[in-house]
């Protein structure tokens, strides 16, 4: 009966993309937010952003929604809308103060994730983007399990160039394979820095073992793109603004836009293939 409830709620979701890493602090939430903004730029599309990082929910701040509350209605919990076509849900909205620690063990976290999926009234959604915490644990197992009621188009895996990140990301790729979650591709963040003054390029996080490019080659996954470091990215996140809108000329914006387009194409293609099969 529970599975049927989830299926019903998620029936109106056309595409679902999970944003994963394995490593913390590589830019999952940043990327999830920009993916959501990028897809919602098309006003005919309805986009939903679900933040299941229960211990460290970054999405409210990044989307400029800190302090917002969740409202309940007859049809369920209402997401918080950034734009008419972009709705957000996060445990951050349920905390009475942003500094409250959510010190929960796995089973309680799983319960909340299930509630998010079952009780949030998303309405008709073209793209559901799910931002996850680092690791391969309760949250990740649960979201894959609960979302089996709908179809997950795939996972976007985020990394930075250094081996200490890649070694965790390889585990995440293996996790995806283990749970049969398709991998749309890998995004390499913090990939070089071009000084705006002297235009010299520096590798702040040197890819000592070949970076995401080599890893993708070795593991036969797609490299969706590399995004250079831009101090404006962190600033935009802190101020809750869309970096794509604040810095349209940045090389990082160009990279993000290309990556978002590739993800869109992947999802659309997937849909066509499925329809053919049916």
């Amino acid at each position, binding site marked *: 009966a529970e599975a049927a409830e989830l299926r019903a709620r998620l029936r109106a979701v056309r595409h679902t993309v999970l944003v994963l890493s*394995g*490593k*913390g*602090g*590589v830019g999952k939430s940043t990327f999830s937010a920009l993916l959501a903004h990028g897809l919602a730029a098309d006003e005919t599309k309805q986009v939903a952003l679900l933040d299941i990082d*229960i*211990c*460290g929910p970054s999405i409210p701040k990044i989307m400029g929604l800190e302090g917002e509350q969740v409202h309940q209605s007859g049809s369920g919990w209402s997401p918080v809308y950034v734009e008419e076509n972009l709705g957000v849900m996060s445990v951050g909205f349920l905390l009475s103060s942003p500094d409250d*620690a*959510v*010190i*929960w*063990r*796995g*089973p309680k*976290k799983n319960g909340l994730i299930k509630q998010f999926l079952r009780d949030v009234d998303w309405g008709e959604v073209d793209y559901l983007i799910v931002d996850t*915490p*680092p*690791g*391969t*644990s*309760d949250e*990740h*197992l649960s979201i894959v399990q609960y979302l089996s009621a709908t179809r997950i188009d795939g996972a976007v895996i985020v990394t*930075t160039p250094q*081996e*200490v*990140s890649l*070694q*965790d990301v*390889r*585990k*995440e*790729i*293996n*996790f995806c394979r*283990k*749970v049969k979650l398709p991998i749309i591709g890998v995004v390499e963040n913090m990939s070089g820095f071009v000084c705006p003054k002297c235009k010299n390029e520096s590798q702040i996080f040197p890819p000592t073992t070949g970076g995401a490019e080599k890893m993708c080659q070795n593991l036969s996954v797609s490299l969706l793109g590399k995004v250079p470091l831009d101090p404006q990215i*962190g600033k935009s*996140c*802190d101020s809750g603004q869309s970096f794509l809108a604040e810095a349209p000329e940045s090389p990082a914006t160009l990279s993000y836009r290309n990556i978002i387009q590739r993800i869109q194409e992947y999802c659309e293609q997937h849909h066509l293939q499925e329809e053919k099969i049916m």
Partner: protein
Amino acid sequence: TSAERANLAGVRHIVLVLSGKGGVGKSTLSTELALALRHAGKRVGILDVDLCGPSIPRMLRVQDSAVHQCDSGWVPVFVGQDKAIALMSIGFLLERPDDAVVWRGPKKNALIKQFVTDVAWGELDFLIVDTPPGTSDEHISTVEALRPHQLLGAVLVTTPQ
């Protein structure tokens, strides 16, 4: 139990390295702190309780090491220039380094308890405990298991944003 007490009985100070946020440099700091304390002549151990993303073995170039058991429990891997820093990490228990540890809370808790009480640390001045990001199973279990012992306190790591 007396066995549990014994393995940490010789440890004078336990320091937790925490954050909440990932990717801010907890493991890096834990490693550098251990190396600096060793350099100052202290007997040091590192316990890596990041089960999903154990970074310490690679940072100390022992990612290919294996661990053994003795009568009093797990024998740590000895690292550093003079092989005098004792390290225990789940990284050592993985058959292949790319294997994901895809465990739910209860299984993680059981392993952490074992790590804390079953490692034959011997006499140490400092045991540095590196943790994963968050405030969940690993953190609750680690603090619970360490509380009866000489828990000095926590160092919190962040970045500016």
